[in-house]
């Protein structure tokens, strides 16, 4: 999928290795050169039916930095959804006001539904616990930038692997690059079986662990995630696992990790990463958040046909 023009960006599964590499290369160009005015006259509808800070603001910033305009809302409570309007009707109406839709929704499959009913491109900015492909692009971009390569890395995924959509998407994407994957979680937040099955079918070496202790020294990257209280139906189950993992500078150093280990996190963090980590060379999560701009600029420009 190297041709992005007018394509919907719904799932990381829609991308092959060439498509991913094309986008990462374009993001690098976006970061190195000024592209102001590239999307002049284009309008992005930013539709957030679920709260978001980084994703929403970085999309809006990327669009404005390319000279485009942004309309939309950041909470569904102020939309006709509260009057009972269907999602399909909402997006069909908004389609007439813009050139591209970026949609965040709490229901899984919402972005696909929107893409099925409108003729303009739809970008999935997160649909429930399902997919968050643009987060994966910036995760990949950050890994490539800080490790110098995407090929053959040993990557540990830590935290909520059951509901963590960014984990699922990143694991699928890294499968193209011969990565070895270690899934570290409490037993009730393990990587879903169908994800493991899919990775096994793609001949990815994956392992499951409950702690970092025996494997940390092997890892090139740790991808840490928040245990998401809002995804638990039962608050008692959440209380059992919150605070299970807490990475700090001293803890990481005590594990004998590689000097060039990089720790990523999609943010926001709660208590899984101590602030003592922030100033270390391990911590690249703030840089990761900043990388949302060149990556989303690249994506918007590619989908709207403004670049080759």
């Amino acid at each position, binding site marked *: 999928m190297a041709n992005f023009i007018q394509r919907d960006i719904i799932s990381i599964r829609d991308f092959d290795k060439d498509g991913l590499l094309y986008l990462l290369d374009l993001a690098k160009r976006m970061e190195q050169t000024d592209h102001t005015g590239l999307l002049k006259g284009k309008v992005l509808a930013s539709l957030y039916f679920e709260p978001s800070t980084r994703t929403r603001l970085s999309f809006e910033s990327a669009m404005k930095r390319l000279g485009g305009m942004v309309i939309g809302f950041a909470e569904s409570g102020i939309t006709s959804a509260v009057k009972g309007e269907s*999602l399909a009707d909402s997006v069909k109406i908004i389609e007439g006001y813009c050139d591209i839709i970026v949609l965040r929704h709490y229901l*899984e*499959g919402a972005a696909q539904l929107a893409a099925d009913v409108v003729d303009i491109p739809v970008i999935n900015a997160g649909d429930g616990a399902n997919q968050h492909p643009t987060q994966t692009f910036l995760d990949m971009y950050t890994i490539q930038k800080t490790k110098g390569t995407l090929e053959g890395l040993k990557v540990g995924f830590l935290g909520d692997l059951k509901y963590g959509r960014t984990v699922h998407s990143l694991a699928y994407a890294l499968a193209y690059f011969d990565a070895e994957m270690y899934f570290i979680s409490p037993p009730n937040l393990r990587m879903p079986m169908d994800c493991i099955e899919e990775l096994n079918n793609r001949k990815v070496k994956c392992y499951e662990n409950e702690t970092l202790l025996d494997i940390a020294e092997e890892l090139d990257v740790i991808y840490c995630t928040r245990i998401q209280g809002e995804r638990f139906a039962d608050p008692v189950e959440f209380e059992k696992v919150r605070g299970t993992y807490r990475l700090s500078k001293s803890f990481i150093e005590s594990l004998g990790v590689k000097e060039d280990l990089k720790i990523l996190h999609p943010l926001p963090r709660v208590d899984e990463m101590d602030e003592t980590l922030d100033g270390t060379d391990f911590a690249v999560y703030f840089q990761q958040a900043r990388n949302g701009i060149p990556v989303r600029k690249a994506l918007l420009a590619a989908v709207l046909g403004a670049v080759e």
Partner: protein
Amino acid sequence: MKNMDVSAIKDGSVIDHIDSKSTLKVAEILNIQQEEQVVLVGMNLISKCLGKKGIIKIGGKSIAQKEVNKIALIAPNASVNIIKDYEVVQKFKVKVPDVLEGIVKCFNPNCVSNHYAVHAKQHVINKNPIKLKCHYCERIMNAKDIILI
């Protein structure tokens, strides 16, 4: 002389080679309790290929494609015979289509298809054993997860 376990019907449809244990589920798909003509249901009949099989004969009934697709999910070995004047005028094996629309409910309670008036839709990624991927939420469903609409 061949001994028939279930009597012949003059006109209608016969669903044969049903896995015996799935017979009543197929009967449910065909909504037999609403039929006004003859309905014959046989279970645990001897079958060369299945060991034991089920069979359903419904007088005056034409099977709709949607029903055939549902039967294929529950009883992949089944065959359908269309009967006219005691003769089989058409016979075919049921076949799972590549895409199912409005037939199976997505088992994921957070799937958008369970919250809005959307036709549930799945892509068949494996026919035997059956494996479906929801068009919307991408969850994979196995036979045990299938709830027919």
